[in-house]
Every structure is written in C-alpha cells, then in structure tokens.
C-alpha cells in the first residue's frame, strides 16, 4: 500500500485555506435567514348579509324587474375556502412548495391550487341580520387571495325549522307593474348531489395576521331570472310555494350558485381596530 505522510506544503496550505474561505464567504451568508416560504397566520372568519346598492337589506330588484322584499332569508353553508390568485399559482416557478400533494404517490407533488384558508364547520346565516356573524379564528397561509369558494349544503339541526335539510329558505313578496306575488320556499338538492358549490366569488386582499375575511350574501341576486308570475298562490293570502321542477325553483337554484350572489371582503387588523 502506498504510505504517505500527511504533510502539505505551506503553499498548498495557503491555497486550500483560501479556497475554503472563499467558499464559505460566498455560500454562508446566502444560506442564512432563508426559509421554505409561506407563513401561517390567524384570521377571523365572518359571514353577513349584504344590502344591494341603493336598497335596504332584504330589498332588491331582479334583472326581470321584480321588486323583491324579503321577510326571511336563511342560507346553510357547508364549507368556505379562499384561494391564492390563479396567475400567481400558474406562473410560479415552483408553485406551492408548501402545498405539495401526494395523490399518486407519497412524494411531494408540487401542485398549487390549494386554499389559503378554509372554514369547515356548518354555518346557517340569517341573510337579513344587520350585524355580521363572526364565526371564529382559523389558521391561514398569509398572502394574496383572489377568490372564495362556498359549498352550500342541507341544514342539519341549525336555523329555523323551515330550513331543515334545505340549502336556503326564503319568504317574502315580489311586485312588478302592480302584480304582487307572495312566496315561501326552500331549495333542496335532489339526486346524488350533496353540496352545491359556488365558485369564483371575487375577492381581493392579502391575508395577514389578525384580519377578518367576511363572506357576504346578496340574497337579492338569488331571484335573478325567476319568473314570479309563474308561481301559483293557493289563495287566502297564503304565499305561493316554490315547487321542484318549476321555473321558479330552477331559477332559484341557479341564483343560489351565482357567484355574484356572494361577496368576499378582507379587512386588515388595522382597519378592524379603527372601526372599533
């Protein structure tokens, strides 16, 4: 075997030391203080009824010209989620490092359309309540958002009895050109559907610690396209029922999943402090 004494000349010692020093000098500063990206914050989640511009809460005018006045408006929500901007996820060189998935295999599949924050508890909202309904705090990933998704599902044990098993329940009257129609109806899912997703609810803001995300409901938009004159009142001033298989029911179904029937508002912690 070759035996070699471990003796390095002074020149080489200097060269080696210089090389190591240069390496450390270049790399070490760059290696400190960087993380994997992403940050978790706590935000408050709330839901609220939202009035149409120029109208009182519960009053609106549909696209068919019906003036609607609601006496009851209840909505059952399953889950709510807010997402980062699509262009951010699509253009990211390494999109969603922190949102890796393992669907086909237990590796880290870097796909990123996951939500920044979500509310998973069932919520029943009185869309005519003046004060927002603050649900609580959730852990969220800090950063910009551009949309909210809401899943409506049948109410179970929450809200008024008339809402039981339904997505929403409304009561009120609609008037157009002197014709007044009272109505009372609940929207339920049929067939295999268990939830009604409402996607692409516009949102704008940057989630940060202590802020509040409020999902608003513009109940007046539920009635767009609904032909109230097709409702058949039973008489005796009883309101007309919204029956399955009718145009009013289908219009209400489409109205309920209309993203314009919802709003999403981000209020920073500072703004919340000023309000209070």
């Amino acid at each position, binding site marked *: *075997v*070759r*035996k*070699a*004494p*471990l*003796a*390095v*000349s002074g020149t*080489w010692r200097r060269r*080696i030391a210089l*090389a190591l020093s240069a*390496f450390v000098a*270049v*790399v070490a500063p*760059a*290696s400190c203080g*960087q*993380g*994997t*990206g*992403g*940050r*978790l914050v706590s935000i408050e989640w709330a839901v609220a009824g939202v009035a149409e511009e120029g109208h009182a809460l519960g009053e609106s005018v549909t696209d068919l010209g019906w003036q609607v006045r609601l006496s009851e408006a209840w909505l059952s929500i*399953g*889950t709510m*989620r807010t997402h980062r901007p699509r262009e951010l996820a699509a253009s990211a*060189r*390494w*999109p969603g*490092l*922190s*949102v*890796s*998935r*393992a*669907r*086909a*295999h*237990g*590796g*880290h*599949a*870097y*796909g990123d359309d*996951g*939500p920044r*924050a*979500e509310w*998973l*508890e*069932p919520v029943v909202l009185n869309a005519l309540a003046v004060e927002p309904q603050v649900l609580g705090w959730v852990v969220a*990933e800090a950063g910009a958002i551009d949309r909210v998704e809401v899943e409506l599902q049948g109410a179970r044990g929450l809200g008024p009895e008339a809402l039981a098993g339904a997505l929403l329940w409304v009561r009120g009257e609609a008037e157009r050109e002197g014709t007044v129609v009272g109505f009372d109806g609940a929207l339920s899912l049929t067939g295999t559907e*268990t939830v009604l997703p409402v996607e692409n609810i516009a949102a704008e803001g940057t989630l940060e610690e202590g802020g509040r995300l409020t999902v608003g409901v513009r109940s007046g938009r539920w009635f767009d396209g609904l032909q109230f004159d097709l409702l058949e009142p039973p008489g005796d001033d009883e309101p007309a029922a919204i029956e399955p298989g009718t145009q009013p029911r289908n219009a209400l179904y489409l109205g309920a999943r209309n993203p314009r029937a919802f709003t999403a508002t981000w209020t920073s912690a500072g703004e919340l402090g000023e309000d209070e």
Partner: protein
Amino acid sequence: MRLGPRGIEGEVRVERDAMIRTCRRMPGHARAVFLTVAWAHACVSSRAVAHEPDEDLHPPRVRHAAPVPHPAGPDAPPARVVLEVSVDEQGRIQQAHVVSVELDGELRLVLVQAALTHIWDVELEPARRGEQPVPAVVAYEMAFGDPGAPPAPEPSGEGPVPEPAEEQPPRASPATEHEAVFEAVAEVDAEGAAKWAASDWTLRVEPLREVPRRRAEQMWTLSPGVVLGNHSGEGHAPTVFLRGFNAGEGQDVEVTVDGIPMNEPSNAHGHGYADVGFVPAELVREVRIVEGPFDPRQSDFAVAGSIDYRLGVDRRGVLALGEYGSFQSYRAVTLWAPEGGSPGTFVAAETRGSAGFGPNRSHRGFSVLGQYERARGPLEWSLLVATHALSFDSAGVVREDAVQARSMDACPDTRDDQFFCLHDPNQGGAASRHLVSGRIGWAEGRRRLDQRVFLMLRQNRFRENFTGRLLNPMGDGLDQQYGTVMAGARGSYRVTFDWLGRDHRVEAGYVARHDAGRTRAWRLRDDGIPHDVVFDKDIRITHAGVYALGEVSPLERYTVRAGLRVDHFAFSTVDRNAPETDRTGDRVGEQAMDAFGVAVQPRLTTQLRLVPGLHFIKSIGLGSRSSDAVALSEGERAPFARVRAFEAGLVYRGDLGPVAADLRAVAFHTHVNRDLLFDPERGRNVPLGASSRYGASLTGQVGLGRHLDARASLVWTEAHALPEDAGRFAIAAGPRLPFVPRMVSRVDAVGRHTVRVRDEPVRLALAGGLSWVGRRPLPFDALSEPIVTVDASATVGWRWLTVGLMALNLFDARYRQLELHHPSHFGEPGDPVSLRPARHFAAGPPLTVLLTVAVHIPTGPAPREEEP
C-alpha cells in the same frame, strides 16, 4: 505479508534461475514490498538470456487484495503461509497450492483455508519484461499476526518500480537454491480510491460488517449524507435523500447490482423505482457509490448519484445464519461459497419475515441466488440466477393532527399506540423477481473486454392510500401494478497504454435495455375493490447509452479523466384507458403513442496529487433522468430532467501513525435547469423550474489493524428553488426546498478483540452505527425535530460458531422516517373535507432486539501442503 484495511503490506519474492547473481546483489525494501518468486518455467522465454542481468524484469504487481485477518483473531500466535501461485501473462491466477505453513496444531488447517480462500481474490497485473507481459510462478507469502516483519520504510507510491534500498538485504527465501531472488516494490491500487470524483467511493463491506445492516439497501448509508426513509415498510424500497435531492425510490439515483440495472422505468408506483431487497446483506461484498453524475458509465437516473452493489463472499465455506427477535422478526440465511472458488461463486437462500412493529406491518419473503464465476485464465465468465418473492402489509402514513388528537380508532388511544397507528388497513404489496445474467470477460495484455447480458422478469404491486377519501368518498386507495420483462446488455472495451512512462487508459462502452410490460393504477374503495382506473398502459421502452472515456496523465502528478455519454430513449405505449367517446363521437378505447429522446452528457474530472497520498479532485458533469412514459404525448421529444453538477474535494489516503486513513473534504453544487414532476391530476409531467443544491461534506475512515474500523461523515446541504431572474452564481436564491436534510452525520465503528478461554481463542466484537439528521426545513418556515438513532451489536465467536445480539434504535427513539405535506381526508365520508395541506409521517421503527446465531464451516478438499 502484512495486511491493512486497504490493501496489502508485505513482500513479494520473485525468483528466477536466470537472475541468481544479479538479483541476489539487489537489496530490497522491507515493508510495502512483496517478495515474489518466479520459477523456471515462468522464464522460459528468458532462458536465452540466462545468467544475464535482466533489470528490465518487473514482478507481478498486486492490483487489489482483500484484507485477511488472522482466522483465530489478532492475538493468536503469528504464523506464515507461503503459497505457490501460477500467474499467466494476463495476470490471472491459474493455480495455487500451499508451499509451507509455519505453524503446528489445530490452527494449521484454518490458516491454510484462509490463505487459499484469499488468494483467489487477489488481482494481479502480470509480470513484465519491459512492456511485454510474461507468465510467472509467484511465491505468495502471507504473514498472519506479523511474525517478525521488519520495520516499514516509506514506499515510493506511484511510478515505476524503484531501486531497492541498499541497507536492507533481501529476506530469506524458501525457494530452491538455484532460484534467483530480487525484490520490488509492490504497488497496490488503493482500494476505494476516488476516480471520477472526490465522492467516488468503492467501499468494502467487510470492515464494517458487524454494524447492523440487515438489508442490502442499508449499505447506502456508508455513503456520506444519505438518508433513507420508507413509507411502506419492509418489502418496499426506501426513499433516498442525497445531496438535496428527494431521489424517491430510485427516481434520481441509478441502482445496479453487478452492473445489472435495477431502476424500473414507468413503474406505476414511481418512475425509476429500484429495489435490491432480493439481495441478502451477506452477499454484498462491495458497493461503489458515486455522488453526482461524474462517471461516463453512470446511466439513466444518475441525477443525484449512483450505487452499484457488487456481490461476493470472502469467507468461503458454508454459512448457516439464524436471526430472531422483537416483533417475531426472523431471518434465516444459508450460504455456500465453495472453497477455492472465486468470491463471485456462491449459492445463497434467505427467508425472512416479521409481524411488524405496529399494526399492519407484517412481511414475509424469500430469496435464492446462485452464481458461478470462473476467473482464471484470459477468459473469465460468470452466470448469476436469482429468484425472489415477498408480500407485505403497510401502515402507510398518518396525519400528525390525528396522532395528536389520538383519534385513530384502530389503535388504543395512548400516544405510543397512536404514533404507530394507521388510517387504512388495506395497504401493502407484493413483488417477485426472476433474474438470469451472464458475464464474460476477456483480457489480452493490456486490453480488456467485458460483456454482460441480463434477463429479468419483474412483478410488483403496491396498495397505498395517502389521501383517504379526499378525491372520492368511496376511497382514494391506490392499487399500483407493474409487470415487465427486461432484457439487456452492457459491455466495455478498455485499453491501457504507456505514454511518457505512465499508464493511460481509453474505454468505450454501452448499456442497452428493453422493458416491455404493463403499468397501471386503480383507485380502491374502502373495502379494497377497485372503482376507478387512474391509468393503464402497455409500455415498450428501449434505452441505449454509449460512452467513451479517456484517462490520461500528462504529468506524473496530474490526471485528466474525460468522457462523453449519449443516451437514447424510445418510448412506445398503448393507453388502455382512453375514453370510448369524445366530442367528435365514438372512438376506440385505446390509444398508441410514441416518443423519442436523446441526451448528451459530457463529464470531466481532473486530479492533482499535491503530496503523496493527498489529491485535489475537481469534477463536472451533466446528468439526466428519462421521462415517465405514462406522462408522454404523441411524438413528443421526450424531455429530461437535466442536472449540471460540480464538485471539488481533497482526498487523503495513507497512514496517520499506526492508523490507515481515508479522509475526504468535498464541496459540491448541482443545478437542475428544468425539473419535471408527474402531476397525477393532469396526467402528465409538469415543469417545475430551476433549482439549486449545494453543500459540503467531511468523511473519514480509519482502520487500526483488525482491532478497530471506523467511518464517520458530516454533510451539510442546502437546496433552493431558484427564482426566474436568478443569476448564474445566485446558487442560494429563492426559498429552501422543504424536507431536504440540511445536516446529516453518520458514524460506524467496529472494535474487535480476541481473548483466550482455556487456550481457545474467543473472538469478541462490538459495533455501533449512529445516525443524526439535523432539523429539516418544513413548509411555512418551520423546522422538524432532529433525528438521532443508534444501532449496536455485540458478537462472540468461537471456532465455527458466532453468537450475536443486535439492537436497532437502541434508545427507542420515536422518530419520523418520512414526512409529507399534502391534503387528505381520513374522516367519515360525510364529514367536511379540508383541502389545506397537513403534515403526514411514517413512523420509524422502535427498539428492535435480535439474536443472531451463525455457524460457519469451512469445507472443500484439503489443500496440498509442503509440496517439494
């Protein structure tokens, strides 16, 4: 002859009747010199110049020789065995028999057997007269226990045979009086020497054999910085973390067994999946690990590096080993390595199983391997056959929040039970492998041709569930199936030539393989019944890689190694799961697809010898990983993940006082310009942009005779996702990649001692392996807990019997061997589903204690002794 952990120290005697007077006047070196005896017939060609000085004659040089401990332990009485070995002009050992044994008593036969076993493992370069190889008969002298060897002078290192020192006369030769004696420095190619990179390791397993490593795959951890994890337990190949890469189960590391490729392209479980579980650990004689793509022989998947498991058995005879312990774990190995055969000749059978360290972790399997190797003469060949099957259950991964909430109903609600619990009991797998491979080698002078062919039938199936019911309320479980026939060949032709008085080499080689089979994945309901097809494809993949390399030393201290590699891939698939209707109308529910790709990869290494034993090695290379055929489109120019790797390091191999040492300090950087990852939802690979990985490592291996062998490493790695505007030298820009181990250390140590009990030598050995994985970066700037595990073993050996106690995870640490971060839903179907990613992990095994009993019986015909 004296043996060290890295090679041979001793003397070679060369005796030729044509050289009596001249050679007897030649003084010699002492240690590090072999005394070689060339008998008369070895010099037939020189009889014409008999009685003439022949200073141009060079004895055979030992190219490689395994360390041989005293069979009775280091404290046994010293002894000397002299073998007569016929060496042909190709350097092949033709015959060997015992000339003398300087010891009486019971140990005599043991020594003879040890010597005869050892000699067939010695690799020699032929004796030469000038540049002409000549046959020789060599007296090969082995000194067990150093019987009065003279003090060792410093050897000359590389270069031509030096003149012996005047003041040291030649030692007495047992040769007949008409034979000449002269001495020459025996140059031994340093075992494990770095060739293509400072992180090019050729590691003998034997010095650290006692450190608990129950499976061949665990030999990976001999390489610095390697971290293994496993999300499916026994029967499933480990996930390899290396140099900042999550190399999957083979996606970014090339795995071969004696050159036979193990990576499985387009495996449904993971592209490049590579499992060497069919190889019993006792058959792994050596591993060659290259970290980074620097050797032109490294092929597809060698992005982060490569490992080649080299099979062989040094201890000849019959070995019967039984192991039993915690969790009803058992393993039985029967191994027969015929005496006198080369190390590559063996037959081995292994059966193993366990109830597992938690619910749903049992496994059972068997392997049978046999190989015959004929390594004498200019033509050498071998034939390997292997068959293997196993089945296993798996606990998969669990959600961290479920463990903390102790909400998994399948286990008691204690913290420990929940830690080892599971969400889905319908996980596990099965695999089988049937392999036949033949190798033929031919050497003539300084030219060498090697060819290997292989045929393998491979079948595996994995059932796993990472997401619960996230995608479908019926269940997201996956049933991944892969069945292929792989046929291929690899070969090389190497020429060594002399120029400027130094050896240089050129080599050309190839690897070609064709994989044909089917890969598919189903979604499973909670009851294990498939309810959806994820993909289902027939695959035909042809890969042909060719390379040419040269190794030139224009200066005595400076060596340049350069090579070019070109890989061709042809993909042909038939999608059996195409829709039967589309917007246009009805269509056939199958669809064929072809794609083709070429990758060109130059590689360059320079090596400068600063002082004897100390080298500065710089390497740069391009590597690539082929695409998953499942994700390709018609006519696509198959894209590759390409890496550009750079490494520089100092390597010292030599002695530090009485300690033989191998010390290395390495800095490295790897740039991935376009990584690709399969997105199962999109059904194709998606580009993920550029990334950068860099770091440094310190590694040392020391040996103190047979008393101590130790190896330690410390590796620092950073991995970053590069932003689009990152400059060429902004290697640390962008966020860190999560889960990549930043600091990794590994220490292996074995201490041996022999005591005498009633005049019987009793061998004692203590061994330990310590792994430390520092805090890993996790998503959202979090850090994981560090992982420290210690494995230990204690063995006692007497004659043919060895009894050992092995403890894995000695301090019963609770650790996560693999962590993942993804959305899942393991709740009831009607429960609200969170789409936010959550932490998941696979629990590492707790303390496992195993008792091992091994009986090793040398067999075979008694050697000829004391022949006149």
